[in-house]
């Protein structure tokens, strides 16, 4: 009998609900039955409500079972072995059919996440066998300006939140004079409701390394830093191992694949400061300083890390580059709508029945994501509000659920897509408490440089408390709106500048929650 090939995700979300126990149980059961087992710890397929999602390789394809906890394992193996002997299926209650046919997965446009959940993320050979490093091979035949042009033509915009065209950033760095240039990857994924960076770093680390290497070739940068948040220890391990493997095989180092071109890469850990997801704070932090925001100009593209020209992009942006080079700019830009080209890995989170990662072309509506993919709330109660784009994103009421996933459509309703995180809340949410939390979060995480952000956020918490306490509520509301305006216009970066989004959207769309808790007699 050939080896039984079984996949149990090593993704940290899957591990957080018992994937390690499941994997151990499978190994133990296989040994007890004398089966030869090939157990792969793959990335997650992104259907997180089904984790641990176990897949078993069959002649027809990979059969999915989920969620599989350790005690389910013997019965699943029984069903499977009987199937093998008799040649016909005896379905187990947790069987979900072929993974590739599950509608949640099948309907997606997996470009950046093409390999996540499919390959063994620790294997460079599997990466190469699944179209890996074709983008780099292509880039090595091109002039730097042609690589930059290709990225520009693809329409790729920064996926970290600001949505700035990646090609234009790269062009500035290419044109900048400097004895040393850098590529910095922003892997400080601090927005609540987002985990796509984590999933790709754990599930396909080589694609990010390849993207950074191409960025180096395109701009003349020879050193890369990957600034990773400490909260992702599994991603750190995966990246360190992948960098070592890529270096050993000549994909990184002083002479990339014999081309004479150099690119070296190192992972650096953050230390729990949300503000370090802002690019200039991140650069300060990499330099060993407090993560305080810098004035712009000078742009980091001209004077970035250690004062040198620096490409700084988010994980998903850089991880989208290899497929653009491998398949061509045209292929990528054919996905999407308007000025939002390509795909966005959307993350469904919070109170949602089918939470997970959905990579789709821009243009789908929020409602389709919440109900067709997400299946509504986890609690079974109506979804009352969703926050899109992290702690600085607006809260949207049901009346705005038809907004298309597109940067411009969101900007038009004073909201933002940000990094693509969608957090659902059911009808038990207290929107005034959420507004207060937004101010509290800003106070905790402010770097302290701009007074409206540093002090205004604390005052904001107090004003909301007074408003709800019934202390001259009408005046407090005026004051709160005025304060939000001051923070918006008086802060250098998005933390102070966008805290008004969650606060004012909560106030505008859910005014009933802001009425005084104790109505005066």
């Amino acid at each position, binding site marked *: 009998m050939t080896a039984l090939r079984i996949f149990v995700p090593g993704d940290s979300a899957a591990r*957080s609900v018992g994937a390690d126990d499941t994997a151990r149980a499978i190994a133990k059961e296989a040994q007890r039955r004398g089966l030869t087992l090939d157990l792969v710890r793959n990335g997650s397929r992104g259907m997180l409500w089904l984790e641990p999602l176990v897949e078993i390789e069959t002649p027809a394809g990979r059969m999915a079972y989920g969620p599989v906890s350790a005690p389910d394992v013997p019965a699943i193996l029984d069903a499977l072995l009987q199937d093998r002997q008799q040649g016909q299926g005896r379905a187990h209650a947790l069987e979900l059919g072929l993974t590739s046919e599950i509608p949640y997965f099948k309907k997606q446009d997996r470009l950046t996440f093409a390999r996540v959940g499919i390959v063994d993320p620790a294997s460079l050979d599997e990466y190469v066998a699944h179209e890996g490093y074709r983008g780099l091979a292509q880039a090595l035949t091109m002039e730097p300006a042609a690589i930059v042009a290709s990225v520009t033509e693809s329409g790729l915009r920064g996926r970290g939140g600001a949505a700035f065209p990646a090609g234009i950033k790269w062009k500035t760095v290419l044109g900048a004079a400097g004895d040393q240039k850098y590529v910095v990857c922003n892997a400080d994924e601090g927005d609540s409701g987002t985990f796509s960076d984590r999933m790709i770093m754990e599930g396909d680390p080589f694609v990010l390394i390849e993207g950074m290497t191409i960025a180096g070739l395109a701009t003349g940068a020879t050193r890369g830093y990957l600034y990773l948040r400490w909260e992702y220890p599994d991603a750190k391990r995966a990246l360190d191992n992948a960098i070592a493997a890529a270096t050993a095989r000549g994909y990184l180092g002083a002479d990339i694949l014999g081309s004479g071109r150099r690119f070296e890469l190192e992972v650096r850990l953050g230390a729990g400061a949300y503000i370090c997801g802002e690019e200039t704070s991140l650069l300060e932090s990499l330099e060993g300083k407090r993560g305080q925001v810098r004035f712009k100009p000078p742009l980091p593209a001209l004077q970035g890390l250690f004062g040198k020209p620096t490409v700084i992009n988010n994980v998903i942006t850089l991880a989208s580059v290899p497929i653009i080079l491998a398949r061509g700019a045209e292929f990528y830009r054919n996905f999407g709508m308007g000025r939002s080209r390509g795909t966005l890995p959307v993350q469904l*989170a919070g109170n949602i029945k089918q939470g997970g990662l959905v990579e789709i072309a821009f243009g789908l509506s929020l409602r389709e994501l919440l109900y067709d993919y997400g299946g509504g709330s986890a609690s079974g109660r109506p979804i009352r509000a969703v926050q899109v784009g992290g702690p600085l994103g607006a809260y949207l009421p049901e009346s705005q659920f038809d907004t298309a996933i597109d940067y411009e459509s969101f900007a038009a309703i004073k909201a933002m897509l940000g990094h693509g995180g969608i957090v659902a809340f059911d009808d038990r949410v207290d929107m005034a408490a959420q507004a207060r939390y937004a101010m509290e979060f800003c106070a905790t995480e402010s770097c302290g440089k701009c007074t409206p952000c540093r002090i205004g956020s604390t005052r904001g918490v107090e004003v909301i408390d007074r408003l709800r306490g019934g202390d001259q509520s009408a005046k407090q509301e005026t004051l709160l709106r005025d304060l939000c305006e001051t923070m918006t216009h008086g802060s250098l970066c998005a933390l102070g500048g966008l805290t008004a989004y969650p606060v004012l959207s909560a106030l505008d769309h859910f005014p009933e929650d802001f009425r005084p808790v104790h109505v005066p007699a």
Partner: protein
Amino acid sequence: MSQSAPRRVIPIKPEPVSTLAAAELARIESVCVALSNLPGALLPILHGIQDALGYIPKDAVPLVAKRLNLSIAEVHGVVSFYHYFRTERPGRHVLHVCRAEACQARGSVALETHAQASLGVGWHGTTADGAITLEPVYCLGNCALGPAIMLDHRLVGRVTPESFDALVAAARTGS
């Protein structure tokens, strides 16, 4: 240059006597030796010290400053800026509870209350038996499977008050 009075030199105050044990001192030194040549070495060194000792002792600050040719104020400023760095010795286990919105939507506020009440400590506090230090954290990247906590760098999802108590009890007994 005009002829002025000779420049008065303000003597640098001698460093107060370190209270670090010899073993701790040696580990701090070895971290500094290994990492101080990196560009932007301060954060890697502080991580190294916290990994080795569980915290960054106050008396480590002048040593790091001297090694990197920084002022004590600069190093202190960095240590105190980042939430992750601690200057007090933690309990045997560090437990981070996610406070961010996605976990709130799944009931993390009740879990926070339960955590503080059952452990008898507030944020940053360490239980009386020295077993657990409780810390807040803003997002662990497990937003579809909240509420989430991290116990000594191990992520746990869908935490209920009951499973929280079981995890804490297991950590206490070392199982």
